[in-house]
């Protein structure tokens, strides 16, 4: 945390923290990939974690979801959750769209969506309402309900992955590199839908390599480099070209 410069943002004057992460360390076997990372996500914001390839961005999300070995403290909605298993975290509303989207190709689009609501106990009515919302957000998914999910285009699969996560009724949506393999125009579409979700009050933690895209909808950003948080900033501050250049050329503060 020593290298991190903290900055209070005007629009989040007294935000309530939905996710508070302290000293999160993640290891694959004996290799430590994340080194004592601390950060927080405010209720209702879109937080972006930027960083070059191999910085540990995906690992960060996987660590939050208990999919890699990790230590540190994680508080979600005030509760310590670092001892919970992946499925329990999802049940609590921490839902991730994983790297590579995790679409089940042989199943139909609709089956994939239904899997999203697998653990919900709040009744068919609420689930159907969310399904309608997803279909409003992504009309193409409605048209292709009975199609094999594997036959969708990359962009549609990303929509399906997000839609499926929405059906889990997330309190915090974790998105791992949604732009991967998508044409800029398709990515714009995805970003628009994320913005809509944000406007409806959904909190989003977005991990992205393509900073200019992600910063369009972000309120705050962290930059992760070599498993450390190098910068924390207002998204607007990072949106300038020099800031981005610094970020990828390896500057350790944002001046």
């Amino acid at each position, binding site marked *: 945390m020593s290298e991190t410069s903290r900055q209070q943002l005007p629009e989040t004057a007294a935000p309530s923290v939905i996710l508070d992460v302290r000293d999160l360390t993640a290891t694959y076997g004996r290799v430590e990939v994340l080194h004592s990372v601390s950060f927080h996500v405010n209720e209702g914001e879109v937080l972006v974690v930027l960083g070059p390839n191999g910085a540990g961005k995906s690992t960060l999300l996987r660590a939050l*979801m208990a999919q890699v070995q990790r230590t540190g403290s994680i508080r979600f909605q005030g509760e310590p959750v670092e001892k919970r298993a*992946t*499925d329990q975290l999802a049940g609590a509303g921490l839902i991730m769209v*994983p790297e590579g989207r*995790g679409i089940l*190709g042989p*199943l139909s689009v609709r089956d994939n969506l239904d*899997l999203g609501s*697998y653990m919900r106990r709040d009744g068919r009515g609420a689930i159907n309402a969310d399904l309608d919302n997803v279909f409003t957000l992504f009309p193409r998914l409605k048209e292709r309900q009975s199609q094999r999910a594997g036959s969708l285009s990359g962009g549609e699969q990303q929509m399906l992955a997000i839609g499926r*996560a929405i059906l889990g009724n997330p309190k915090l949506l974790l998105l791992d590199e949604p732009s991967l393999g998508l044409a800029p125009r398709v990515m714009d579409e995805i970003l628009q839908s994320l913005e809509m979700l944000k406007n409806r009050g959904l909190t989003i933690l977005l991990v992205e390599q393509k900073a200019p895209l992600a910063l369009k909808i972000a309120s705050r950003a962290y930059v992760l480099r070599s498993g450390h948080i190098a910068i924390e900033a207002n998204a607007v501050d990072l949106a300038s070209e020099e800031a981005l250049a610094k970020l990828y050329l390896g500057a350790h503060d944002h001046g």
Partner: protein
Amino acid sequence: MADSESSATPSLALPPRIARGSRSMRIVVISMAVIIAALPFVASTYVLSLLVLASIYAVLAIGLDLFMGQTGQVSFGHNAFAALGGYATAILTTAHNWPPLAALAFSIVISVIAALIVGVRTLQLRGHYLAMATLALGMIAYTLAVQLTSLTNGFAGITGIAPLGIGPLELTSDLQYYYVVWIIVALGIWSSFRIKDSRVGRALGAIAGNEEAASALGINAARLKLIAFTISAAYAAVAGALMAHFIGFLSPEVFGLDLVTLLFAMLFVGGIGTIYGPVIGAVLIALLPAILGPLADYRQLAYGVILLAVIMFAPSGAFRLIADLAERLFDRSSEGEKHG
């Protein structure tokens, strides 16, 4: 699909949810049922006895397909549950004079319990490690069948196992076994489809597709894998019990490593994960000795060659070949949504 249950075949009274989707699929399933129902009229006694064995193998294969196909796991050890079910039935009906159905119920229960105990630990393993652990399970079962002579009579085996029956009604001919066991196979197919179409089945499919993504959706993968393992062990126990009754004799070799090889051949030749496929595979593999005729001594070689050929040239198995062919023949007009 609601009309397929009116199919006139007694041995495969298919409930509505089985044959799904297209006309061609319906035709394939009904044809299979008709062929199964009609085969005894043309088969020799030798072939008929092989077909009864095929139906027993089919029960085992459907169960294993639930764990390997639908859930995407691997087990080299389901012969252990077949052995447990078979020996429980053999011992209870001979030494303790239990009626066959009670013995069958007990066989299922004890296999389920064994699967739960074993599965809790082993199913935390993945891939090769799970394969090795289950392989060990089969070897342990085999060794126990050999060594626990006071129960199993070792290599000499248990003889004089009564035929399957309820009270005075006993199955006395191969023909009777044929229809009864094929009805059990139909029930097995039906149950397997019911599971596949259920909430649990979708979750199993998710685990097969991507276990991590599945858990991120809130699916408790460990518990669901255990459920699939346990259900498939129950199928194996039923098959083991049927085997004991049908042959009337049980020795450790019946459930040896050969059985595992056979099962894998059935699953892959027929088409893993397709439910019908392993049944077709069971028939094809069980009939191989008859097909090879004088070359039957080389059947292990034939299994190997066929398995290789299927994996190389038709990796999705015989059922997919048949289904695709039927689709081309009968679904030309519709734009053909592919299944599976």
